[in-house]
């Protein structure tokens, strides 16, 4: 904390949760909530029990089935992934034995952990939350201190209700200026990574602020903070405001009555002091950002939709040059190729980055009255059962299916390849997910990350394009 007494939002949450400072230089941090999922949670619980430890307070531990569970309509415990049902069954029996609230395969509130955690009001502003999943930083979007951990740390969290953590530094990313129409939080975070690299946030908790951030919807803030891990940040955080209060009012596990009043009063104190000192500060002019799409196999290998696939020779550093070379080989692209000339075989709308109702509405608005290009496979996977129900109530499912998309049950689905479903080798997927790593969506599958509207527009066009360009080009033809 700064000597002046001025502190950042992160400092405040950190000190509010400090049980004690350890001789080692670490802090013993108190955890308010723990969320698990069937892929890593099952192992953590099993290992915890076999080591003879018990869950300290099961009432604040939650678990969902999202990673391995199938997303085909009418799914059960069987999965396309060989041995996938072992994870499901183990998770069910371990959570039952430990009295942990499970959002099971057939639960009406099931969904991707980072989507249902705020949707249920499990995570709240000012709380600490950990989950053995790297995208837990998503919850910084509502002003929670939330971060991803490994399985051993999850065992520690379950057994002790705390974690031993060395305090990261403070970074502030100020985004001013108005995002242009059609530019989303996804484009903003890809722009940030393009500017400062996948390593730009290493060692920091990143607070996003500025006029462009205040204007973002709560769901867009989740998208932004979701990819803080792709920026290598410990986590990200945004000060909660009235939008966040409105978001939580009435949620299942949110406080009610007088507790709600107390909560709101406290949440209004959750902001960095005016004179708080940050170890690093970055500024972004939001009005200069254009729709972005990745061309390579790392989120920093990214360009504006109007730009070109770079020539590896144009990178000064040898390792960047080699990385670009390898990425182009994997992706089957040529240097100098216009991004807007890249034809796609598939389009995926889903994942903890972009599968919330606002994402689906935005994508549906692009798709409405159009049809996906011949030979392109389109898949839409709502982030939760609640999102799915709401989308169906609004008729979005019909818009998607009439346009030729598959409409799925909720889960992580083809965001990653667990050995089950994939778009296939050498298939080029425009995807609203967060990772374009080699093999992430399947062996030799080629991933291009973009916003849901860009994914929707590209599915219609058959090549990578923005919604704006799609509409303009149709107007020209007509």
């Amino acid at each position, binding site marked *: 904390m700064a000597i002046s007494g001025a502190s950042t939002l992160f400092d405040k949450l950190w000190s509010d949760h400090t049980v004690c400072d350890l001789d*080692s230089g670490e802090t013993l941090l*108190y955890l308010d909530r723990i969320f698990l999922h069937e892929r890593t949670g099952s192992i953590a619980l099993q290992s915890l029990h076999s080591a003879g*430890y018990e869950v300290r307070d099961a009432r604040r531990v939650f678990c969902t089935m999202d990673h391995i569970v199938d997303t085909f309509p009418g799914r059960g415990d069987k999965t396309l992934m060989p041995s996938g049902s072992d994870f499901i069954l*183990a998770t069910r029996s371990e959570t039952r034995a430990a009295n942990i609230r499970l959002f099971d395969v057939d639960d009406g509130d099931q969904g991707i952990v980072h989507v249902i955690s705020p949707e249920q009001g499990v995570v709240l502003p000012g709380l600490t939350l950990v989950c*053995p999943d790297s995208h837990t930083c998503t919850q910084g979007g509502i002003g929670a201190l939330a971060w991803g951990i*490994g399985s051993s740390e999850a065992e520690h969290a379950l057994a002790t209700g705390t974690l031993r953590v*060395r305090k990261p530094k403070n970074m502030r990313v100020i985004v001013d200026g108005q995002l242009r129409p059609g530019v989303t939080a996804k484009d903003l975070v890809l722009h940030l990574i393009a500017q400062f690299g996948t390593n730009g946030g290493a060692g920091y908790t990143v607070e996003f602020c500025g006029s462009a951030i205040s204007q973002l919807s709560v769901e867009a803030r989740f998208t932004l903070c979701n990819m803080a891990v792709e920026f290598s940040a410990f986590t990200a955080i945004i000060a909660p405001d009235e939008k966040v209060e409105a978001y939580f009012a009435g949620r299942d596990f949110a406080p009610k009555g007088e507790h709600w009043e*107390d909560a709101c009063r406290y949440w209004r104190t959750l902001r960095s002091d005016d004179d708080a000192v940050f170890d690093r500060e970055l500024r972004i002019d939001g009005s200069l950002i254009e729709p972005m799409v990745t061309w390579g196999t790392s989120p920093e290998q990214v360009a504006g939709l109007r730009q070109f696939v770079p020539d590896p020779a144009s990178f000064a550093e040898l390792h960047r040059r080699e*990385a670009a070379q390898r990425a182009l080989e994997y992706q089957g692209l040529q240097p100098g190729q216009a991004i807007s000339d890249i034809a796609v075989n598939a389009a995926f709308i889903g994942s903890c980055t972009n599968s919330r109702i606002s994402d689906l509405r935005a994508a549906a608005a692009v798709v409405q009255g159009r049809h996906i290009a011949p030979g392109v496979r389109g898949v839409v996977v709502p982030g939760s059962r609640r999102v799915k129900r709401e989308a169906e109530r609004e008729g979005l499912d019909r818009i998607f299916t009439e346009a030729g998309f598959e409409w799925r049950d909720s889960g992580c689905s083809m965001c990653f390849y667990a050995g089950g479903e994939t778009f296939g080798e050498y298939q080029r997927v425009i995807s609203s997910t967060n990772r374009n790593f080699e093999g992430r969506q399947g*062996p030799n599958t080629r991933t291009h990350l973009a916003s849901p509207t860009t994914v929707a527009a590209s599915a219609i066009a058959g090549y990578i394009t923005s919604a704006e360009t799609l509409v303009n080009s149709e107007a020209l033809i007509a």
Partner: protein
Amino acid sequence: MKPFVTHTGIAAPLLRRNIDTDAIIPSREMKRVSKRGLGEGLFAGWRYTLPGGRELNPAFVLNQPDYAGTSILVALDNFGCGSSREHAVWALAEYGIRAVVASGFGAIFHTNCIRNGILPVRLDEASIAALAEKVQQDPQKNQVTIDLQTCLVQCGDLLWPFSLDESARYLLLNGLDPIALTLQQRRAIDVFEQVRRKEHTWAYAPMEDCVEGVWS
């Protein structure tokens, strides 16, 4: 947990940035609810010729006879970035990797290493380049020694100091389980919890409605 005091072994350079945990162990190789049986899946996408196959790709460094018995990896920045899957570390350990020397690590991966007795050593890129060059001259002969007591990496006549967070060093040197260590602070945790629950009742009240895993 296996302590790490000092280790001498063959080092394999894998000079790339951003080697993510999906590359270290692809999801499709995480077949069972277990920390074991993962060594075979280590770097599967690069190590084998075909996805899901087991035919060795002779071009991959760990498959070359010179690097048989590798126990140390040498890489560039942001090693272990991406997914939090601890399977990456379990796979490395099962394969026989005791230490990773890189110019930077993914934060979650770094902690996962410490929790599993694998030493993550951070050196600058120039040192990594020099170390890799030395190793490549004769990998079997130019073995690398990493001493966690003195915090030195040595290869032949080359020597580099490194630093590691004191707590991580202590846990590794002694092979300690941090859960047992933290449970010694149980009283402090209980007291903190009581105070916090009183000050922030709103945060816990909704959870009190739960009796034995059944929510009202």
